């Protein structure tokens, strides 16, 4: 993990300078090669448990697995950029460099051992995302997204940092193990209220970035305005890294005061599920629906964090992977449909199955996975999380989650119905979408993996 962080940073700088070459043809393959190198280097840390950089970072199998998900999702999203920038003057090398830097931030967020590194990773990731949100310079909605994301994100960062300061004030350490030791010893002596205040503020800061319910209001506008390619990145990488970070700080340091924070997380997850799913029903735009769906999935993942136990980290891992794959598929199809049919609403998908059966099939699998229909990865993701909740005895959470997944089926299947049962209204829409090879490859991989996870979840789960 040490080398992948260093390598990716160097690769990012290299990418900036690759942009000075005359030809842009090598840019995408080289960037994919960079990510593949980082992936291989990351995987060499498998089954090693070590600290590096003066106990600032630590790796174990879980962090390696999360880093793998992050790098793989970046590798799946990058090929979608192939025909995404029709403008020859678009600073594509800079976008790639920023994406690589944001992957560095995400890896820092899953391997941190010191809260300072968590902050550093979160900021590296967020600042890169602020830039990418506003990258469509001619589009006022992109400006709106960047400004909203930046202001909200900066605010959340301030709250997080304030919480970190409080934790330091209470415990005198930034280290996760140091915090854990303080929590263990103070259970006897009575903890300082600053600890609870600090933990709450840190939780708020992280939950803000994860768009969990009381702090979700920036999400739809930001996801909507950001160029779709980068929305896909935002919805997958940021969420995976954020949940890994949240789980790590709570499981390593604060299991001792579980009775204090679980009720907060349980309440926010119920709120998130309700708001995310019910608001998604009313959306007319597929992209906004996906934004609300990402809120609701944050709610499901939060259940796994709340029901902290032996298997919850493997459930979070599995759910993140299934969610990531399905989300990348949906955004890839959305990019194609939006470019060829000029619309992000559900009606833009009308009659897609007749002209592009492959696209329609891939999107249907993705929707089934997001809704949690069996034989897709999303089913087992939800299944494992519900088992966690059941083992912990969080029945009311389980009831809300099951009810809300039933609501989810309604809005996820609207697009499936549009594709298969509605004919296209006008002739212009009836044109067949030509799927570029890079898109076809990404869609084939994500669809295959989604079904594979749904048929044989044991392939992944047995490692954790």
């Amino acid at each position, binding site marked *: 993990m040490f080398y992948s962080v260093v390598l990716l940073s160097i690769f990012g*700088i290299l990418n*900036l*300078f690759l942009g*000075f070459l005359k030809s842009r043809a090598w840019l995408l393959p080289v960037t994919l090669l960079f990510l593949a190198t980082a992936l291989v280097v990351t995987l060499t840390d498998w089954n090693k448990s070590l600290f590096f950089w003066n106990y600032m970072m630590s790796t174990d199998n879980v962090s390696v697995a999360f880093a793998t998900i992050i790098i793989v999702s970046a590798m799946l999203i990058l090929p979608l950029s192939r025909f995404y920038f029709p403008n020859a003057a678009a600073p594509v090398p800079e976008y790639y460099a920023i994406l690589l830097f944001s992957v560095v931030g995400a890896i820092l967020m899953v391997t941190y051992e010191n809260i300072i590194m968590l902050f550093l990773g979160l900021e590296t990731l967020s600042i890169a995302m602020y830039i990418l949100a506003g990258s469509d310079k001619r589009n006022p909605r992109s400006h709106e997204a960047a400004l909203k994301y930046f202001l909200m994100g900066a605010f959340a960062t301030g709250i997080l940092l304030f919480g970190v300061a409080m934790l330091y004030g209470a415990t005198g350490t930034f280290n996760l193990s140091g915090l854990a030791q303080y929590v263990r010893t103070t259970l006897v002596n009575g903890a300082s209220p600053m600890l609870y205040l600090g933990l709450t503020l840190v939780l708020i800061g992280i939950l803000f970035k994860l768009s969990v319910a009381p702090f979700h209001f920036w999400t739809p506008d930001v996801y909507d305005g950001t160029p779709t390619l980068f929305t896909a990145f935002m919805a997958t990488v940021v969420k995976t890294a954020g949940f890994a970070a949240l789980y790590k700080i709570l499981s390593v340091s604060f299991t001792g005061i579980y009775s204090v924070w679980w009720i907060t997380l349980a309440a926010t997850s119920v709120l998130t599920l309700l708001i995310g799913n019910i608001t998604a029903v009313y959306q007319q735009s597929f992209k906004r629906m996906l934004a609300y769906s990402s809120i609701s999935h944050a709610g499901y993942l939060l259940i796994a964090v709340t029901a902290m136990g032996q298997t919850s980290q493997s459930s979070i891992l599995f759910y993140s992977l299934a969610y990531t794959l399905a989300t990348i598929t949906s955004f890839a199809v959305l990019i194609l449909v939006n470019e060829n049919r000029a619309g992000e609403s559900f009606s833009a998908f009308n009659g897609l199955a007749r002209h592009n059966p492959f696209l329609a099939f891939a999107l249907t699998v993705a929707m089934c996975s997001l809704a949690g229909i069996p034989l897709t990865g999303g089913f087992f993701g939800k299944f494992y999380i519900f088992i966690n909740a059941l083992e912990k005895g969080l029945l009311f959470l389980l009831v809300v989650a099951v009810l809300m997944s039933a609501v989810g089926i309604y809005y996820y299947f609207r697009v499936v119905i549009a594709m298969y049962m509605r004919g296209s209204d006008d002739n212009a829409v009836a044109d067949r979408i030509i799927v570029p090879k890079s898109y076809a490859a990404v869609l084939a991989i994500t669809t295959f993996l989604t079904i594979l996870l749904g048929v044989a979840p044991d392939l992944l789960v047995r490692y954790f």
Partner: protein
Amino acid sequence: MQSGELSAFGTILLFIIGGILFFGVAMLTARLLRPHRPNAEKLSSYECGEEVAGSAWGPFNVRYYIVALVFILFDVELAFLFPWAVVFGDHKLDVASGGLWSWYALAEMFIFVAILALGLSYAWVKGHLDWVRPQTRPSDWQSKVPAQLYDRVNEKYKSSR
């Protein structure tokens, strides 16, 4: 920490209080001692005679921000050089490592400066350091008044200037 002894944060608090006191006492003394005779000229922003035109909140050329960002590059570099300079010449560390410490620290700082220099060279190649002046294009409008008429007028009033 023993009671009655200052912790590191106590020193910082004293420093902050000292700073506020120093500033406050200086301002207060000046206020008590100085004569108070304001006039319109004195209260203007630039007493040297520059007329204030409009608000300062107008839009600026975006190039100023790029220059500011390039400045930050050097600013950050300098901010990190100071703490480095303190540990660079640490005699104890140098002796303990058999003279290797200084070389190590020097190499580290060169790597850091090299990365920042890469950033500067990137901005340079991108052309962010070129301040393009607006090109003044001479007008192609032909005057019906012959040029020597102007010369004659200039000649005529030269002596009276």
